[in-house]
Every structure is written in C-alpha cells, then in structure tokens.
C-alpha cells in the first residue's frame, strides 16, 4: 500500500515534470518570434541579413533603438495612439456595460431581435463596409480627426456580448431590492451593478485597449495626415518605405508592444476571473 502510494507519487511527480518540460519547450517556441524581433532590433546592422549570423547577436547595439526613435516620429505616433485608445476605452467600456446590462437584466419589446442585430455586427467583414464607412466619416467631417477613429468602433458587439453573459448571473433580487428602496436606475447601475462587474470591466479594458491600439484598416483610411498617424500606421509606413531597415522596423515593432504589455500585466489578475464569469466559459 505504502509502496504503491510512493510509486504513484513518484509517477505523479514524473508526469508533472514532463508536462512542465513540454510546456517550457512550447513556451520557448511561442516566445521565439518575439525574441527574434528583439535580436534583430539590437544586432549590429551588418548581421541582420545573414540569417546564419547566430541566434544571439554578436553584440548588443542599444543605439539601434535610439536611432529608430530619432529617425521617425515614434513619440507623436504613440501620443496619437494613446489618445485614441484611452478615449475609446472609456467610451466603449461605459456604453457596453450599460448596453449589456440592459440586455441581461431587462425585458423589453424587441430585445432578442436587437441583440441578434448586435451580434450580426460581428459578422460583417470590415473590408466590405470600408468605403461606405469612409463616406460616413467624411460626411461627418471627422477625417484626420481622433473622433473619426474612436466613434466608428466605440460600440463593440463582442464587448456587449461578454457583458451580457456576465451580468445574467447577477441576482435579480439585489436589483429589485434597490428599486424598492427607491433608487434610480442609474444609481442602481453605478452603485450595485458596476462594483459587481469589476472582473468583466478588466476584461473589457484589456480587450478594448488591445483592439484600438492594434487597429489598422480604419485609421489607414481616416488618418490622411501624417501628423495624425498611429503606431500601427507608422509601422506600416516603415515597412513600405524602409524595407531593408529591419533593425529599425523591429525596434519600432517591439516598442509598439510595450503599452499593451503594461496594460495586460496591470489587469491580468482579473483576466481569467472575468472571462470565467462571462459567457466565455
């Protein structure tokens, strides 16, 4: 009995170790492209084009980063991206919470059909509506304007969907009790619903930040002036204009990830919890 236990404990440990080793190997493969970005960015420029130059750069030229930032208006691109992203996150999270809450906790005429309409927005390939959308944005006078990029994407079908699934599990009794106490609907929303929704808010913040920070097709047609370029547009411009300056392109590409990583690290502890509370389970 005792021998059996220790043998199974041993095999258990063996199993855990081998799973761990496999995971580490897998993580190595997953991480390699990002490492390679880094390696390309800091290599001496002569080494960039010889793939055989070795996995580890012969020396680390940190100056490449400074050069890249010096040669392109990376800071202005970043500022534009940040302005767009921050406004978009605030707006999207607020209105998606309100909307998802209404779909989850109210019965009203046309609810299901409206919800279906929201979901159908997910299924429209962006390239199909890009020209009509450009005409709308142009009619509204929002070309080369932050709002021209923020507003068209502020309503996010996927966000509404997640919020709805999450909020379905908020007990009705809580809301009814507050109503009986004479609380206004807005007050109920802000005082009861929002505090209960922290995990899903974290998920929404991460996703919205990610979507807006990484947006490409819409800013490409809306932001015609170079001073309004976002990081992704800038990266695309570099790829098109300086197609041999791989260390510069990789340096900028790598830097473009930094805000995402900060946000993700910051909100990460809510992340799995939030998704697990939402319909994504």
């Amino acid at each position, binding site marked *: 009995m005792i021998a059996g236990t220790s043998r199974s404990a041993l095999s258990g440990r063996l199993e855990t170790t081998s799973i761990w080793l496999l995971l580490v190997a897998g993580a190595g493969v997953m991480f390699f492209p990002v490492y390679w970005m880094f390696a390309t960015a800091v290599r001496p420029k002569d080494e960039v084009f010889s793939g055989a130059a070795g996995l580890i750069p012969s020396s680390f030229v940190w100056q490449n980063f400074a050069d890249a930032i010096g040669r392109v208006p990376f800071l202005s691109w970043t500022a534009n991206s940040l302005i767009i992203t921050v406004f978009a996150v605030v707006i999207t999270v607020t209105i998606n919470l309100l909307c998802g809450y209404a779909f989850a906790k109210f019965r009203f005429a046309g609810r299901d059909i409206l919800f279906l309409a929201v979901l159908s927005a997910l299924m429209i*390939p962006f*390239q199909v509506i890009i020209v009509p959308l450009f005409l709308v944005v142009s009619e509204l006078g929002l070309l080369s304007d932050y709002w021209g990029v923020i507003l068209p994407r502020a309503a996010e079908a996927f966000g509404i969907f997640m919020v709805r699934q999450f909020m379905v599990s908020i007990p009705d009794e809580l809301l009814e009790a507050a109503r009986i106490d004479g609380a206004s609907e807005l007050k109920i929303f802000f005082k009861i619903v929002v505090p209960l929704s922290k995990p899903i808010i974290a998920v929404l913040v991460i996703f919205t930040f990610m979507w807006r920070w990484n947006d490409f097709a819409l800013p490409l047609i809306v932001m015609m002036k170079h001073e309004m370029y976002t990081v992704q547009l800038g990266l695309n411009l570099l790829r098109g204009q300086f197609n041999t300056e791989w260390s510069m392109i990789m340096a900028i590409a790598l830097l473009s990830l930094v805000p995402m990583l900060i946000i993700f690290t910051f909100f990460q502890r809510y992340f799995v919890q939030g998704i697990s509370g939402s319909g994504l389970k």
Partner: protein
Amino acid sequence: MAAVMAIAENLRGPAVGRPSAADARRYWLQAKRSQLTPYLFIAPNMALFSVFVFFPLLYAFYISLREWSLIDTPRYIGLENYARLASDTLFWQSLSNTAVYSIATVPMSLAIGLVLALALNRDLYGRTILRSVFFLPVVISNVATAVIAAWLFNDNYGVINALLQQVGIGPVAWLSSPRWALFSLVVTSLWVRIGFCMVVYLAALQSISPTYYDAAQMDGASRWQQFRFVTWPLLRPATFLLLILGVIHSFQVFDLIYVMTGGGPGFSTTMIVQYIYQAAFVGSEMGYASAMGMVLFVMILIFTLLQWRVNRRVEDVA
C-alpha cells in the same frame, strides 16, 4: 435576505390586498420608468451601430446593385453583380481556400488551446509566466505579426531556413511554393489564436466545481473517463463559442495574408476577403466587390445561426 423578503412582499403587494393610492402610483411610475430604461441604456450603442455599421452595410447593399469604379458616377444595374458571382470561378476558389484555411486553423487552435489550458490549470512552477507567454501573441497587432512572420519565414534571410540549412535541409520556399505557403499562414494564425483559446478554456475549467470530480473518483472513474464525462461536456459552451468566433475570424482574415503572400503563389492563398478587396481596389469594381461582401456576410450569418440551432438542440438533449 431582507431584500429578498422585500421583493416577495413587493410582488405580493399590488395583487393582494388593496394598495394605497400613493403606492399604486409609485408602482405605476416605476413600471413605466423601467419600460423606458433599457432603451435608454442601449441607445448610445445602438445609435453608434446604426451610423457606423448598419447604415454602411445598407449602403454596401445599395452599391452592390450598381457598377462603380469609385472615381466615376455609379450606374444602376440591378442584380447583375449577383448573377455574375455564380460563374466567377475565382470567387468560389477563394471561398474554398477560406474554408480549407478555417478547417486547418479552427479545430487545431481549439485542441492546442484546450491541452494548454488543462496543463496550465495544474499547480505548476512558473504557471503565471507560462500562461502569459502563451497569451502574448494575442496582444500583438496584425501589422506587427505580419512583419515578424514575413521575416521569420523569409525564403532568403529567414531564420527558419537558416536553422534548417544548418541541419542540411532546405532552403524551403515557405511563402512562395503552393505546397508551403498555406502551411506557413496556418502556423502563423495558430501562433496568434491558441493563446485566446487557452484563456477561454482556462476560465471555463476554473468554473467547474471540484465536486464533479470527487463524485467521479468515488465511482472509480479513470482520468480519461473524468475528462470524457465531466470536463468535456462542461466545456461545451466554451468550445461552441470558440468555434463560432474562430470561424468568423478565419472568414475575415486579411491583413496577415495581404502582407505575407499577397494571395499567391497563384491563387493558393487567396482568401475571400482579399478577393473582395482586389475586386474593389485593383479591379475598380466596387459594385461587384460589395455584392460578394453581402453574400459573404449572409453566409457567415447563416452559418452562425445554424450552429446556434444545433448547439441548442444538443443542449436540450443533454
């Protein structure tokens, strides 16, 4: 608890006994207010959707009935664009390419995501870091992903070929042989997608109550049986959602392929959205492109609704 009692009382209130006139009025106003509230709450979203999604969609339909090169005046031609679709072999080829791409990426990304989630749901050393590494590609933009992938897979300077050549293989034309181009795209897409699947599965695993496993273990169920009869059925909603999102995603794939292969070699990696894009901006046939877009939209919609129905039915049976 007090709240629940209050609700119960409230529910009984107006129906049983005679409420005071003031109570009745308050009840009425509240009922009326809550009638309006949901509409007010969804209004901002719906307004934005209407202006920036639904109206452009209707507009695209309007364009689909016309011949328009973007720089001239549109001319009404009825359903001609739709009629043309049936005989456009390239449309069907890019549609079937897209289907192949979806079949190659969606189940695989779900499977790998699930295996990772099961492994990372254990108590392992450095679990958080491992999870983060697997999730990392999800947050990388399409532009950056395409830049990295095109660089890694590059036939002439790519590190993959350099490494292969060191062991005496290659060079492989990763992006320019019909045999490997789709493969390279699928690998890149998996790199992007599996992290998302993993996180969703992880979340789902964590909401499975341990009591299910206790019961199964009491009954002497093997680990495979536990997975087969407890885990897998309880992960159904997550699987279903990932399946739908995966298919929607792969039917809309564009940037990555545009940068990596341009749809070539030949038409071997031309996906439907790229074909639409080409018709609009290279072929200058915006009307025809819009017609294809409408058809694609309806296809995705029907696929999703069908999935939904099937899923409902399976759930009902279960």
